[in-house]
């Protein structure tokens, strides 16, 4: 997030939520947004193919067709430019590339966009005006915006929108990706990415690489590595020999599980380090028992860049070991001694190489934690980025973006759009929540959301088992007849191994830049059993 969670509760006077079912997937942030709307009268715009809890509360709700986000946002920008609502001063002083962007946006009139998105033109106008006229407007998004073959374009589009209206660099404004996992921000910050060391320092930059070579006492590869999705593809092609998987479950979370399964089977050696024998661990040659968050010390970084302490409450269960100790033991056995007495010692080494964390220490993290960047020991941390419209690269760059259709569209054989996501009561691949007694008792079974008109047409009753198929495969699942989505869209979660959504999703439609799979759109067919 460019800004902080607390600002959504009090500073934002307008909030645009696109592709985030906030009250289910980030419930406490959802509570804050609701409070701001209900108690302070903040304006709310929601764009989502499903009528979420927040959509019911919104001043404007736009049920755009899955995969049409660029067109929708271009439409809003078209209105803002044509009605003179753009922040000309901010554009002139803080940005570049406006002209090219405006040229592309010119043809995205609300009427033109209505044809692409199915959102009525007057709603696009209303949403544009509310967003542009708000004193401080924030954009919140999640995987509903990013899990598309145009995911990068989608994110650039909402950045355009924020810059066009000067909604950046002040409390209550900003572009706020709501990150879905406890430490996904930290995993990225720490260099758990194939192209960057900690703090997003490029592995291809010679000076950076020399710094790490000196610190670690080894020579390092100058070549970018493979993303997770590319790694699976390489394994599928038989070019990957060994894979170490730590606390991940690709046999549930990755696109097209047939493809993942074949890829894992082709590996010479698979090691899985986890707290349970996950669907992925079953394919492993060696399984190493790790520890839960309750069994170790450390830090997590949340979606607003706040680094907070994790504290050991109990000893590791049975013979399990904290993951940091397992990694140290492996490195040492492979001839590279890694010796730390505590996670705090690791943190101290890390921060010396990580400029945005350099001013942090366990002592300073007590209590409220610190939000990066925190470059030195006196720095108070940074609640919001790009203050006074000053961007990391200098001027904020507009991107001129044309709408592109999703990779796999409905046709006669597969006439529906399948979109996947999460529910309030489970988390990701269900490894933890399916083993939490109350959560699983409350929601023990996968459901497919189907519009009543579609159900009626096919003679499907609520609760009946139906067959859902895509070009990858099919599964049986309980129908949940609901009017929160359109007649040509169906939705299911990916939490349940008994009916795992990713047997159906598409491994071939990745965003060309981010390599994120298009989980929000694939063509599907529904059959009565």
């Amino acid at each position, binding site marked *: 997030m460019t800004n902080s969670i607390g600002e959504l509760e009090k500073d934002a006077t307008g909030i645009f939520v696109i592709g985030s079912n906030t009250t289910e997937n980030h419930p406490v942030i959802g509570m804050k947004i609701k409070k701001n709307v209900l108690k302070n009268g903040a304006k709310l715009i929601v764009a989502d193919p499903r009528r979420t809890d927040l959509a019911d509360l919104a001043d404007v709700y736009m049920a755009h067709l899955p995969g049409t986000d660029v067109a929708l946002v271009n439409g809003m920008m078209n209105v803002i430019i044509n009605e003179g609502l753009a922040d000309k001063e901010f554009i002139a002083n803080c940005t570049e590339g406006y002209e090219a962007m405006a040229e592309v946006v010119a043809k995205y009139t609300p009427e033109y966009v209505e044809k692409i998105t199915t959102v009525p033109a007057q709603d696009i106008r209303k949403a544009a005006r509310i967003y542009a006229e708000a004193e401080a407007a924030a954009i919140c998004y999640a995987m509903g915006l990013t899990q598309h073959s145009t995911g990068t374009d989608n994110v650039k589009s909402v950045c355009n929108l924020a810059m066009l209206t000067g909604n950046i660099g002040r409390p209550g404004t900003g572009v706020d990706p709501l990150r879905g996992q406890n430490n996904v921000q930290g995993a990225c910050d720490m260099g758990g990415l194939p192209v960057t060391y900690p703090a997003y320092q490029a592995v291809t930059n010679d000076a950076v690489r020399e710094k790490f070579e000196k610190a670690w006492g080894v020579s390092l590869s100058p070549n970018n590595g493979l993303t997770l999705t590319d790694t699976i593809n390489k394994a599928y092609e038989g070019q990957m020999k060994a894979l170490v998987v730590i606390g991940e479950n690709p046999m549930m979370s990755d696109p097209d599980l047939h493809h993942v399964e074949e890829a894992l089977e082709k590996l010479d050696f698979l090691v899985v380090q986890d707290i349970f024998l996950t669907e992925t661990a079953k394919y492993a040659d060696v399984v*190493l028992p*790790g520890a839960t968050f309750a069994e170790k010390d450390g830090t997590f970084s949340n979606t607003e860049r706040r680094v907070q302490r994790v504290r050991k409450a109990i000893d590791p269960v049975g013979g399990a070991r904290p993951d940091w100790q397992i990694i140290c033991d492996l490195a040492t056995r492979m001839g590279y001694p890694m010796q730390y007495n505590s996670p705090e010692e690791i943190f101290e080494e890390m921060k010396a190489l990580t400029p945005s964390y350099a001013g942090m220490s366990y002592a300073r993290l007590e209590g409220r934690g610190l939000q990066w960047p925190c470059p030195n020991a006196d720095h108070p941390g940074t609640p919001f980025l790009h203050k006074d419209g000053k961007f990391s690269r200098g001027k904020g760059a507009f991107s001129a973006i044309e709408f592109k259709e999703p990779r796999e569209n409905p046709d006669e054989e597969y006439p529906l759009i399948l979109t996947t996501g999460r529910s309030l009561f489970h988390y990701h691949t269900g490894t933890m929540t399916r083993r939490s007694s109350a959560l699983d008792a409350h929601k023990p079974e996968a459901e497919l959301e189907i519009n009543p008109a579609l159900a009626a047409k096919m003679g499907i009753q609520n609760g009946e088992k139906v067959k859902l198929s895509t070009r990858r495969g099919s599964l049986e699942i309980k129908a949940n007849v609901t009017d929160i989505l359109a007649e040509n869209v169906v939705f299911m979660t990916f939490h349940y191994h008994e009916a795992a959504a990713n047997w159906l999703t598409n491994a071939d439609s990745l965003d060309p830049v981010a390599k994120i799979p298009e989980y929000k759109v694939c063509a599907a067919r529904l059959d009565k059993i």
Partner: protein
Amino acid sequence: MVTLTVNGKQIQAPKGSTILEACRLNGIEVPTLCYDPDLRLAGSCRMCLVEVKGRPLFLASCVAPAENGMVVETESTDIVEARRVVLELLAARHDFNCQTCEKNGDCKFQDYCYQYGVKESRFTDGGRHVYPIDDPNPFIERDYNKCVMCTRCVRACEDITNARAINVENRGHKAKIATAFDGDLADSPCVFCGQCVMVCPVGALTSKVSAGKGRAYEVEKVVTTCTYCGTGCTLELNVKDNKVVGVTSNRSEEYSPVNKGALCVKGRFGWDFIHSSDRLTTPLIKENGEFREASWDEALDLVATRLQAIKEDSGPDSMAVFTSARITNEENYLAQKFTRAVLGTNNVDHCARL
């Protein structure tokens, strides 16, 4: 600032403070049940009654503004007697079942009854209510036989969660907390966040997941960060005998900067996977398609040897590590260091895209 006299002592408080706030700011304790600083005021339980010179009636200090020159008594004989009556009135609807109650030892009503010597109620002529304890949801036990009608749950549901699942039904002695049409929580807008459990001062609302696993005075509370979504809520793991037996909230903004004690259903009720019988407790090695248990030394040696051999035979880029969005920063740092410095490749990624 306003200046007033409380129990013969002059105190000061910011203008706009209530008498209760002025007292607490100056270290003078006044008993409260319905008052909660994070919720809108109710002024309903009357435990916080105080005597103000010149006023014909006792004032509920949680809603009465502190004024310049006020002379206040918080523990006069009359006030103490009034509080006893208040407690007896509340006790007329409270099932004194402390020996089996989850809140025993952590119950404000129990504390005040003890403090004011209230053992029974003289107002139970018609007998106590007997409400069924039968909401089938797996998260929250609703025992309204213990409810003292402070309405903190109603206000937390509206003010913190904004779910508005419950409200007060009926009036007077028949008043009770209910969902619309007095049904099950699952059929209401309830999202099972348990903010109502967090604020309930008695044993009317408790966690079913923690039931029978330990009382507040038996557990150690370890402040930590939630393991689910990226919001980063602070929570307290309740530990008894080296086992996690519950989750509670720390409501101080100084310790809980993101959520101020508010949690969701997963954070508050989704923790017992930690002690699931499915937990892996020993390394496993696959032989002839079957897993067998192995020692750490054997498993680690095998992994190190195999990775070393593949590195030498096929090169570092034939290997990859998936690190994790669940593990700590320190562990992620080591995982990428291991990949880069030990395996010799930049093939490290995690599920940020999934």
